[in-house]
C-alpha cells in the first residue's frame, strides 16, 4: 500500500519535471506571450495589449531594422522594455529630434542596436540611454493577440526615423 503511494508520487514528480522542462524549452527557444504596459509604443501597441514574441529570430541573429522587440532593460535586468529597432550595428541613426534645426547622426557600435518607441514624445529609449547590447534582446514581437479587434501582425513604423541604405532594398 505504502509502496504504491510512493510509486505514484514518484511517477507524478517525474511527469512534472518532464513537462516543466518541455515548458522551459518552449518559452526559451520558441516564444512567449507578453502583456505590454505603458504608452511608449502607441499607436502600434497600447497599454494592456497582449502580444506573442518569438525567440528564433534573436537566436539566429535575424532581427532586422523596423522589428519590434522585447529586451531586458539596461538599467534593471528584472524589467523588460518593448521598442522598435531603428538601427543595427554599423547603421547610421539620427540623434536629433524632429524639431531640431541641425540634424546630428551617429553610427551604432558593433554588437549593439538602437531602439526607439513609436510614440516619440512619450518614450524613454536609445535617444536618452544610447544603444543597447544585442544580447539583451529577448524576442521579436510578431503577433498581437488581444484586443480582438486588432489581432494580427503589427504595422510598420509610423515615425520616419529609420534611415534606409542601399542594402535594404531587397
Amino acid at each position, binding site marked *: 500500500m505504502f509502496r504504491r503511494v510512493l510509486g505514484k508520487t514518484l511517477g507524478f514528480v517525474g511527469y512534472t519535471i*518532464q513537462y516543466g522542462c518541455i515548458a*522551459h524549452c518552449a518559452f526559451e527557444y520558441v516564444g512567449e506571450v507578453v502583456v505590454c504596459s505603458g504608452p511608449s509604443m502607441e499607436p502600434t501597441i497600447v497599454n494592456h495589449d497582449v502580444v506573442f514574441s518569438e525567440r528564433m529570430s534573436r537566436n539566429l541573429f535575424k532581427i532586422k531594422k523596423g522589428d519590434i522587440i522585447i529586451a531586458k*532593460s539596461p538599467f534593471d535586468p528584472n524589467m523588460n522594455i518593448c521598442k522598435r529597432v531603428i538601427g543595427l550595428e554599423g547603421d547610421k541613426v539620427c540623434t536629433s529630434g524632429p524639431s531640431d534645426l541641425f540634424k546630428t547622426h551617429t553610427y551604432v557600435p*558593433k554588437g549593439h542596436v538602437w531602439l526607439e518607441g513609436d510614440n516619440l514624445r512619450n518614450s524613454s529609449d536609445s535617444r536618452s540611454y544610447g544603444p543597447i547590447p544585442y544580447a539583451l534582446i529577448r524576442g521579436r514581437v510578431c503577433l498581437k493577440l488581444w484586443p480582438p479587434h486588432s489581432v494580427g501582425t503589427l504595422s510598420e513604423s509610423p515615425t520616419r526615423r529609420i534611415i534606409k541604405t542601399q542594402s535594404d532594398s531587397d
Partner: protein
Amino acid sequence: MAQQATAGRRYLRAFVSGFFVAVPVTVTVLDRFAYVARVEGASMQPSLNPDGGSDCDVVLLNRWSVRNYQVQRGDIVSVITLGYKNRYVRVPDGHFWIEGDHHGHSLDSNSFGPVSVGLLHGRASHIIWPPHRWQQIKPSLPANRGPLDTQEEEG
C-alpha cells in the same frame, strides 16, 4: 516477420519518448542550473590557468546562483559577449565592471566599459579539472582594485 515489425516499432517508440524526455531535461539543466566550461587563455592568471600551456582549468558555471542577478565584488563571472578611455569611471545603475585578473592580457571593461547586469550569464563557482585543482572559487578582489568610493542605496 510480424514479430520483428512490432519489436522494431516498440524500439522506435521507446527511442522517441526517451528523446523527448532527455533533450528538454538536459537543455533545462544547462540553462537554469549549471554548466561546465574550459578556461582558455591567460587573462585570469594566477587564479585560473596558473601554468598556462597544456592543462587548461575546467570550471563549473553556476547559473542558479545568478537567477536573481545577485553577485558580489570579487566574484568571477561569465557574461554574454559584446564591442574605456576615462581614468575614473562611475559605474551606472544596473551595470557592473568586470576585469580579468591578468592586467594587460585581458579584454574586459577597460576596453568596452561597464556591462549591463542583464548580460550576466553565470558565476564560476568551482574548478573541477584537473583534480589537483579541485576547489571552490571564493570572491576576492585584488588589493589595488577595490571601488574608490561606494554609495550605499538609500532605502
